[in-house]
């Protein structure tokens, strides 16, 4: 790696670090005059502190809006390449893309094509999802022939039976409610707490400019 490349990496890491720290401090300390109660100009200072975060959040929103162009360009590029190789579905995709653009432009912003095609297809896929999930649930023991697979299937059966509107299944419903309120809720919170901790550690790594993206 040449000297100029190393300098470039160090510079981009520094920019990331500076912007990250300033934005984090601005988010944590800005807009809260009560944090500087003893200071005379607390409201003005708190407003100034919140300014960098507000600017960065707006910049992110604008950049995110622009990235949709990147996404569409990528979609067209990938499918154009497949059209050359004679992929039928890619031809359909590009034709649909052109038709939708033409429809929207010629009908002055009419989105009925989206409502007539996209929504029913997504609904049909959602219905198909139910079948896939049932099939997946039935295959759990084949994939995980251990105590955790057996426990998963047992809980699944109890919760499904408990959700049936049959009077004679009231004891099962009580078990189902208990499962959902205590162990399932505790497990879900444990997973979410773990994800939150992981998010903080990864966030700090990015904040310190240590992420691979800044390392050239």
């Amino acid at each position, binding site marked *: 790696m040449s000297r100029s490349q190393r300098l470039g990496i160090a510079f981009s890491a520094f920019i990331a670090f500076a912007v990250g720290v300033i934005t*984090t401090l601005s988010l*944590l*300390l800005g807009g*809260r005059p009560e*944090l500087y109660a003893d200071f005379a100009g607390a409201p003005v200072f708190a407003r100034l502190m919140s300014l960098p975060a507000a600017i960065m959040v707006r910049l*992110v929103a604008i*950049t*995110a809006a622009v*990235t*949709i162009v*990147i*996404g*569409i360009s*990528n*979609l067209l*590029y*990938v499918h154009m*390449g497949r059209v050359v190789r004679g*992929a039928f*579905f890619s031809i359909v995709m590009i034709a649909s893309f052109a038709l939708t653009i033409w429809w929207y432009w010629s009908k002055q912003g009419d989105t009925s094509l989206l409502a007539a095609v*996209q929504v029913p*297809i*997504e609904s049909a*896929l*959602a219905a*198909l*999802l139910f079948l*896939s*999930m049932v*099939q*997946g*649930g039935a*295959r*759990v023991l084949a*994939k*995980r022939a251990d105590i955790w697979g057996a426990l*998963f299937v047992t809980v699944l059966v109890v919760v499904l039976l408990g959700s049936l509107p049959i009077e004679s299944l009231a004891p099962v419903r009580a078990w189902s409610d208990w499962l959902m309120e205590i162990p399932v809720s505790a497990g*879900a919170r*444990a*997973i*979410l*707490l*773990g*994800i939150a*901790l*992981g*998010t*903080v*550690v*990864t*966030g*700090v*790594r*990015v*904040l*310190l400019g*240590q*992420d*691979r*993206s800044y390392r050239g």
Partner: protein
Amino acid sequence: MDDSTLQVYVILFVMITVVLVYSARYFLARRARRLSQGRAPGFRRLSGWLGEAIEAGRPLHLSFGSAGIDRENAAVAAAEAELFYHIIKAAGSGDVAPVISTSSSATVPLCQDTIRRAWDGEDRRARAQWFPGGARSMAFAAGLTATMGVEEPSAHILAGSFGPELALILDSADRQGQGSFAVSDQLEGQAIAFAMADEVLIGEQLFSAAAWLSHESTARADASVQDIWRGLLIALMAVLVLINVAGQLGIASWSLVVVAALALAFIGVVIVRRR
């Protein structure tokens, strides 16, 4: 607890995490050791899939799902980019470049960047693929399953943000005899991954997965900071539970609480040793 106090605690938490990250990197850099892949959860079949991809000239498919660098789950996207980098590096001697998919348009540059860094061969530009997510990500799942037929990947590494649509993707992979590894930051996706994927990681393993594959001590250091916080959190919760139980049973039960605390500590040590 009022907002200002909470804010101070958050600042302290972030600062302590920064100190821990630097400290762990300093100490672990001296004794960098790669974790044995044989012990890594969820990676038992990965080397088989990589070998199959290389021998059969088929790509690997890696997916971020809806994790986006412009969303609240940006950290998930950053962590998975690191994991994908190591997986692609491991598959580096193959003929066909891996495919990385996403339903977040902002993540497309991250996909391209990951391939550019990890893959030395040609044909890299069209390997990052964006599928519009739609309201319920069903369009993403439909696009992905269609791509499976065209690209014929040897296996799917689905690590990121997935909801119930993961069932469609895993079902399609299973029917086509393609291997699958899945982990999600959404609870619905995580449950489906557990039930339907060949290999699965759970919860915070999403963020430490790269440490299992990496030769770099920094990845291991970051994972160990996560372990420290998790251990402290578990200890804190156990102490609060024991104090609560002691308060309800009366002062005579303190000896029972001490025995329970020792038992909990013993279980914790056994779990840590086994890992």
